[in-house]
C-alpha cells in the first residue's frame, strides 16, 4: 500500500463519479455521481495526510469535506423535491430556465 496506489484508486473513483454526474439525467443520480467524486477526494486526502504529513490538523480537513458532502446532499434533496413538486419531473434537462 503506497501513496501512488491509493491515489490511483481515488482517481478511479473520482472519474467514475465524474462520468455519472455528467451523463445521468435524473438529479438524484447526478447526486450519486457527485458523492462518488467526493468519495475519491476523501480517500486521496486521507492518503496525502498519512503518507506525506500526518499532523493532527490534517484530519480536520477531512471532517470539512464530509460536512460539505452533507450540505451537498441536503440541498440536492431539497432542490430535487422542489423541482419534482413544481414540474412533476426531476430531469436536469427540464431545469434550464436560467440558461441564456
Amino acid at each position, binding site marked *: 500500500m503506497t501513496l501512488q496506489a491509493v491515489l490511483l484508486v481515488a482517481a*478511479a473513483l473520482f472519474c467514475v463519479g465524474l462520468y455519472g454526474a455528467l451523463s445521468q439525467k435524473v438529479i438524484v443520480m447526478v447526486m450519486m455521481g457527485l458523492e462518488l467524486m467526493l468519495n475519491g477526494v476523501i480517500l486521496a486526502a486521507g492518503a496525502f495526510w498519512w503518507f506525506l504529513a500526518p499532523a493532527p490538523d490534517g484530519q480536520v480537513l477531512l471532517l470539512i469535506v464530509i460536512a460539505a458532502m452533507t450540505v451537498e446532499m441536503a440541498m440536492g434533496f431539497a432542490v430535487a*423535491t422542489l423541482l419534482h413538486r413544481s414540474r412533476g419531473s426531476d430531469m436536469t434537462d427540464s431545469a434550464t430556465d436560467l440558461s441564456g
Partner: protein
Amino acid sequence: MIDILFWALAVVSVASGVAVFVVDSMARATYALAVSFIAVGIMLVMVGLEYIGIITILMMVMEMAIMAVYMVMFMGMNPALMPMDMTHNKRWSAVLAMGTFVLLAAGALLIPWPARVGAPAVDLVASLGEAIMGPKMLAMLTISPVLFATIIAGLVIVNPRGRYDRWGDDLKHRPPNDPLRGGLGQ
C-alpha cells in the same frame, strides 16, 4: 496481507462505484454506492484515520438509506420492468472521465512526492479532538452555522405549506390543520 486487503477493497470500491451507473434497479444502485463508501471507509481506517473512516461509513450508510427512498420517490418508474436510458451525452462524458483519469493517474505516478514530514500522534483520535477544540476551533465554529443554515434553507425550499396554511388566516387555528397530525399538536 495489508496489500491484499487494500487491493481487494480497492477493487470492491471501484467495481461497486461502476455498478451504481450500470445496474438497472434503483435500490441496487443506491446500495452499491453504500458498499463503495464502506470500502473507502475501511481504507481510511487502514491509513490511520480510524475516526474519520468509521464516521464516513456511518454517515454514508445512513445517507444511502434515505437516498434509496428519494430514488424510488422521484424516478417514478421501475427501470427493471421498463428498460430505458436515463442518460445524456454518454460519449463525451466517457471521454472526459477517461481523460481526467489519465491526467490524475499520471500525476499520481509521475510527481515525485516529497518524503513524509513528521510522525502521526500516538492517539490519533485524541489528537483530532484536541485539534478541533484547539487550533482548528474556528473552522468547526464556521461549519456549524453553515450546517444550521443548510437545515433552515432545506426546510424553506421543501416545505409546501406555510404558517397560514397550518394555523388559518388569523394564525389562531389550533391544533394546526395538517394532513398528518403530530404527536404534540404543535
